[in-house]
Structure formats: C-alpha cells, structure tokens
C-alpha cells in the first residue's frame, strides 16, 4: 500500500466561472525572435462533475473581446484576415474526457475557431475546493494547449525581408479559471 493516495477525483458539483478573476490568453512567436501575447476579455466556462465522477468542461470566448496594446493591431486581429469576429463571434471548447492525477489535469476535447473544429489536448492543474469570502466555495483550473493556427482558418502571415515569417503557426492558448460552486454563487 502506498503511504499516500493520489487524488484522482474531481470535485463534485457545478462550477461556474468568476469572469473577473479569470483570463484567456494566447502567445505566438513574432518576428522569429520574440513571443507576442494577447488576451480575450470576455469568457465563460462551466465545469460539471457528477456524483459518478463524470465530468465535462465547456467554455466560450468572445472573439470580439480580443485585447492587445495597439488599436490598429486589435482591428486587424478582429478582421477577416484573422478572427473575423463579425462572422465568427465565439471560440468554443468542449471536453470529452478529463483525467486528474494529483494537481495535474489532462483534458481531451474539441476546440472550435472560425467554424474549424479540431481535437486538442489541454494540460494544466486543478486546486481543490476552498471556502473563500461570503461562503463562496471555489476551485482553480489552469489549462494550456498549443494549436496550429492555420488549421483553424487563421492563415495570415508575411515574409520577412531577410527570411522567415512574421508569425509562427503554433500558438499557445492558456486559460486561468476561478470557478465557484453554483449553489454558493447563486
């Protein structure tokens, strides 16, 4: 018998996002040398864990809430060249399986961007329920995955004069979620 058992159970209940204290961001190699980061201001997520352990995480991000430091770049990222927010207002994720090993999480699911849906694996961490202010019980979930943006209809690029391209194809997506047990939050 091992001296300590590794936690593999997810906390039972319906866990809803605290949007103020959560974030969704992306990072992509820019001009070959550096990492450019941006974020989406509006997101939603719900983690549902049944008594039998069946669990699902679903989440959405408002594409139009993309936020970067330059308004011209922000406009370009919203345009048909990139997220085309007029036609595709949301990015969506839905998990098909969630596995926990201690603090570590591995999710399989489907990510949809610009009507392109592909399977992704996201890895991250989970913290167990903790009673916070006003009796609210919360958990924390962080997840990260790397996608090839060109598979999701985000194909813009520009060659650099000395070789290489302005943007890499691989983009890292990160969410940091503060989730409250629905009973306590409502």
């Amino acid at each position: 018998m091992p001296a300590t058992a590794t936690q593999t159970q997810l906390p039972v209940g319906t866990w809803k996002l605290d949007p103020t204290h959560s974030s969704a961001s992306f990072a992509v190699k820019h001009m070959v040398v550096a990492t450019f980061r941006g974020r989406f201001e509006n997101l939603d997520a719900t983690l549902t864990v049944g008594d039998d352990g069946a669990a699902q995480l679903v989440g959405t991000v408002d594409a139009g809430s993309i936020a970067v430091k330059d308004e011209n770049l922000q406009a370009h990222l919203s345009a048909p060249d990139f997220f085309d927010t007029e036609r595709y207002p949301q990015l969506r994720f839905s998990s098909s399986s969630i596995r926990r090993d201690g603090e570590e999480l591995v999710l399989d699911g489907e990510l949809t961007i610009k009507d392109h849906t592909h399977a992704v694996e996201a890895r991250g961490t989970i913290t167990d329920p903790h009673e916070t202010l006003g009796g609210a019980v919360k958990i924390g979930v962080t997840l990260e995955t790397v996608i090839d943006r060109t598979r999701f209809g985000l194909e813009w690029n520009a060659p650099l004069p000395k070789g290489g391209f302005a943007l890499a194809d691989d983009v890292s997506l990160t969410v940091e979620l503060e989730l409250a047990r629905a009973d306590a939050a409502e």
Partner: protein
Amino acid sequence: MRVLAIAGSLRAGSHNGRLLRAAAALLPPDAELVQFDGLKAIPPFDEDDEGAPGGAVDRWRAELEQADALLFATPEYNHSLPGTLKNAIDWASRPSTAAALRNKPAAVIGASTGMFGAVWAQAELRRSLAAAGARVIDRELPVPNADEAFAADGSLAEHEHALALGDILAELLAEARIRSAPTLATAA
C-alpha cells in the same frame, strides 16, 4: 446589391475602366455596378487632416458605406498598385476600428498592356485591403495584353477571362449576401 467599382487608372480610356464595364454586363439582375469617379479628387493622406478630411474623402467613405461589395480593377505601376488607389485605401482604413473598408466584401481584378495582367498589383492591393479590414476574395484575374483583350461590344474577348470574371463576381456577391442576412445584420 450595390457593387461599387473602382478603377485604379484615372485616364478616360482606361483598360481597367473597360474591365469594370465588362464586369457590369456579367452581374445578375439584382446587382448593379456603380463606378466611382472621385479617385482623382482625394487628397494625399495626412493624419493632421483626419479631423476634417474634406468633401472628396467624405464622399469616398460614404460610397464605400453604401456599397454591399467592392470591385477594384487595377493597373500595375512599377510592379505595384497606383499611388492614387493606395492613398484612397489609406483614407478608408482609418480609424481602424470603424474604417469604411472594415468587413466590406472586396474583389480585385486587373488589366495591363503587358503580358502579366497586373498580377503583382492585384496581390498588393488584396493585401492592403485585407490589412484595412476588408473581406477580400482570394482570387485574381490578370488580363494581359489589354489592347487586344476586349471585343467591339466591350466584353472580354477571351472566353476564359469572362468565365473567371463571372466566378469572381459570384463569389463577391455571395459574400455580400451573407453579410446582409438578418442574423449578421442585427449582430453587427
């Protein structure tokens, strides 16, 4: 459907003007092509003038706003698009978050008297339009040897050119119809 047509060449006998008239004849009955004739009057872009750019720019932006789709026909000057045309796009790309070109379906075609049919100018024009936020059709129509490209009735002499132009117009109008559908119109 109102298709605003912009010829990048200013001269009266422009081959690209003829190309736009050939396009007009290929449009379905529910679409009309309106040629923009104010390109020459648009002053050089100057950020200091953005507060009151003047009537020519106001008219250009208003024409873009009223259009359901845009059809550009560009010649090629020094392997690129004419400065007058680029200047007009620069005006219409500002302010970036509310630009007149933003999300506007746009197609680019072109004619030249040389053997390449303004193909590089078309590529650069598409890139500029996309950077300005337009919904650019990813197709080109290079019409080379423009002196001989048109029949007496103004249509394209080469059947393949006419077919390709018809396909581009169909794609352009399809994009415009998606935009004018009620769900998007109310969400925009």
